[in-house]
């Protein structure tokens, strides 16, 4: 990776936000620190899904499964084995990616909605197993009191741990987004038939994207365990998958950072409107309807459109 690959102009707002986030915990109440950490975890989950949906055109309808698998993996490692705890943390994303590969391997034979339907079925199968297998996963009780390492046992230290891995993951996802792989993936989204006609192995490319996305869903799952110290089958339930899907649409699924915005909006609504009414999803529903009519490109898509109405792309002239 050469230095010129990163355009500082597009990066400084992100760096500024990151710096602010680092200085926030001592100033704001602990509750808000916690909510921010929830937003980071949820954002990462949404970002990983968007690699499939927004950039790859793959209808990964049941993405939460891999989030849950990552979370359960680390939970089981920490409670059922005496291995060093770092092993569990590393195993979470890897096992999630292996599940992604297996389920993706079957689903990728189908396209569009058919892919999505098979994916929901296979994902629900994983959910059903977790939900019923009391002896191993704790069934519908889940697993509680997971022994989190001491250095991250306070709200603030958890916040920093999650923030650091969130930033690293986002950076890696950005590199992938701006790589030949990511560009080809977006071309596949726009026109898979044409991609085959220029010599791209579309199915293999999409399968790699699924494996990467499920890996990062697994990272989000591990971070969830760090934050909450417990796991439960709802993490793998299709309702969560739908919620994450909506976050991508809400934020702007053709943009890179849109899902972060979508996750922040959804989590804030749930937290602050949820206090007044348990029907906060009603408000989310109304927002979604307005969105479809007025901002079909999502909130981020709308903002970028205002900044750059001609939709030009900055392209460098020289080769490496």
């Amino acid at each position: 990776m050469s230095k010129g690959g990163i355009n500082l102009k597009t990066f400084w707002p992100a760096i500024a936000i990151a710096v602010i986030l680092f200085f926030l915990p001592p100033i704001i109440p602990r509750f808000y620190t916690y909510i921010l950490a929830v937003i980071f975890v949820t954002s990462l989950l949404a970002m990983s899904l968007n690699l499939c949906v927004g950039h790859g055109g793959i209808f990964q309808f049941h993405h939460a499964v891999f989030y849950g698998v990552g979370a359960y993996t680390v939970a089981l490692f920490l409670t059922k084995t005496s291995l060093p705890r770092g092993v569990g943390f590393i195993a979470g994303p890897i096992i999630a990616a292996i599940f992604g590969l297996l389920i993706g391997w079957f689903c990728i034979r189908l396209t569009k909605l058919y892919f999505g339907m098979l994916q929901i079925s296979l994902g629900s199968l994983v959910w059903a197993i977790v939900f019923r297998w009391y002896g191993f996963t704790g069934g519908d009780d889940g697993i509680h009191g997971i022994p989190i390492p001491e250095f991250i046992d306070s709200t603030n230290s958890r916040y920093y741990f999650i923030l650091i891995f969130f930033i690293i993951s986002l950076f890696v996802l950005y590199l992938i987004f701006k790589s030949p792989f990511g560009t080809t993936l977006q071309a596949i989204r726009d026109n898979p038939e044409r991609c085959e006609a220029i010599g791209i192995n579309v199915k293999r490319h999409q399968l790699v994207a699924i494996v990467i996305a499920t890996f990062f869903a697994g990272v989000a799952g591990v971070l969830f365990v760090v934050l909450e110290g417990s796991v439960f089958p709802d993490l793998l339930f299709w309702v969560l998958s739908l919620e994450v899907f909506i976050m991508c649409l809400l934020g702007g699924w053709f943009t890179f950072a849109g899902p972060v915005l979508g996750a922040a909006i959804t989590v804030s609504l749930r937290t602050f409107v949820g206090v007044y009414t348990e029907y906060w999803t009603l408000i989310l529903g109304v927002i979604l309807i307005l969105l479809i009519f007025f901002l079909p490109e999502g909130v981020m898509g709308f903002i970028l459109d205002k900044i750059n109405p001609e939709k030009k792309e900055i392209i460098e002239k020289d080769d490496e």
Partner: protein
Amino acid sequence: MLQVQDIHKTFGDFKAVNGANLSVGEGELVAVIGPNGAGKTTLFNLITGQLKPDQGKITFMNEDISQLPTHKICLKGLARSFQIANIFHRLSVFRNVQVSVLSQKGLSGKLFRPVQKVAVTETNNILESVGLIEKAQYIAGSLSHGDQRMLEIAIALGNEPKMLILDEPTAGMSPEETAATMALIQQLAETRGLTILFCEHDMDVVFNVSQSIMVMHHGSTIIQGKPEAVRVDSDVQEAYLGDDYA
């Protein structure tokens, strides 16, 4: 270079291609003509692997390609453009061509290299040769119809093909645009040493530029030969005129 021998393709009861033969020599500019529904596009889809033939043999550079998947055929040096502008609407013009160049160089899978540093010179060269360099940074979906057709050809060129198949490259163009496009195609064929197979409805264009013409009717080949020979062939006249006056 390309040999198609007695190829058949049936959709249900409909025989879309029913015994087509075609021979394209290296460096030639070959046209396929025929009335609407004669099976020209189906024939092209069979050659480039979008469809698999029921029967018959297709050889490219002495290799049987009739059962290969599309992306493998493409990497053997046989690229195509489509009848309807088939581009990547949300990507910039530059990226449209770059994706194709990356695929040709086997770089599509690279995860951690900034894409704006890869295959830039090659991409710019292609954009220059088709006259789209000024519009490189525009989103492809916002281009005019004529420009999208040129981009379509540019994407195909990104594969550094030995042979290019163009499905009605001038469809929907004005006479001036048609003339300019055909001149460009001829020029590309010369400078890049391309073999070109195309189909086209405009007979003036076909008889002006092609070295060999294959005529299809009801999915079968009537004749393939030099323009002068095709022009006077009685079966061809019947295929074109007979149907209309029957």
